[in-house]
């Protein structure tokens, strides 16, 4: 399956450089799915939302086609992957030699798998649900809702599933 990903960057008058070199890899402490190239999945709204919240009006958005396939560890749409991820965390917690107070966070688990176990996937997809306006009740007396506007991100560990030919700036318009 192909999707469109949106990559938000601070505007530093370097659009040509970015278009030529491709997306920027995040290797900072903020990399919540581990090191990689971060894209918003399909919904450009979240790319703008992030850009405005971080950079005011001084941001750029690039789009590109991204393949979601058997090389994608899909913690958004694949229940098996979600179940496996929980068991991986449980296994590490139970059988690793941790000291009191140490925390196994999501990016630490992912990086551990990548560095020491052999994580064969080339991308990871996951989401959160910040938008209360885009939910529809399932009805009945239970407070259960269908969530329709999750913020979905794709972290590309490598550029293998990214179409570099399609990578281009879409905001601002030049």
């Amino acid at each position: 399956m192909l999707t469109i990903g949106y990559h938000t960057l601070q505007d530093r008058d370097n659009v040509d450089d970015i278009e030529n070199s491709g997306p920027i890899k995040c290797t900072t402490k903020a990399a919540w799915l581990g090191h990689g190239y971060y894209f918003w999945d399909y919904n450009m709204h979240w790319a703008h939302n992030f850009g405005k919240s971080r950079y005011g009006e001084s941001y750029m958005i690039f789009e590109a086609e991204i393949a979601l396939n058997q090389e994608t560890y899909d913690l958004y749409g694949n229940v098996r992957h979600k179940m496996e991820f929980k068991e991986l965390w449980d296994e590490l917690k139970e059988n690793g030699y941790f000291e009191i107070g140490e925390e196994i966070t999501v990016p630490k688990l992912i990086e551990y798998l990548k560095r020491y176990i052999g994580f064969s996937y080339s991308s990871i997809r996951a989401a959160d649900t910040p938008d209360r306006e885009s939910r529809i009740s399932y009805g009945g007396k239970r407070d259960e809702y269908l969530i329709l506007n999750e913020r979905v991100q794709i972290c590309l560990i490598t550029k293998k599933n990214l179409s570099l030919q399609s990578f281009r700036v879409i905001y601002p318009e030049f």
Partner: protein
Amino acid sequence: MNTPLLQKLREHLSSISKEQFRKEWTDIESLGLEGPNYEEFIQALSTSVKVTDIQILNVKSLFNLELVNVQAGESSFATAA
């Protein structure tokens, strides 16, 4: 559940000493990653989110990250999301 990835993790953990594990985990800690903890993460993945949960998530939004480019060879010309 027994998947190849789980099996590899189990085999690895059972084959290394405490000292080796501490060395590996110190390497991971040195990355300084500050993502959500597992409980926050699994809450965000839930497909049966209650209103109260969503309100919490508005505060603990996982994606409000500032991603600063430090990749070698691409200079420091951008922050990314």
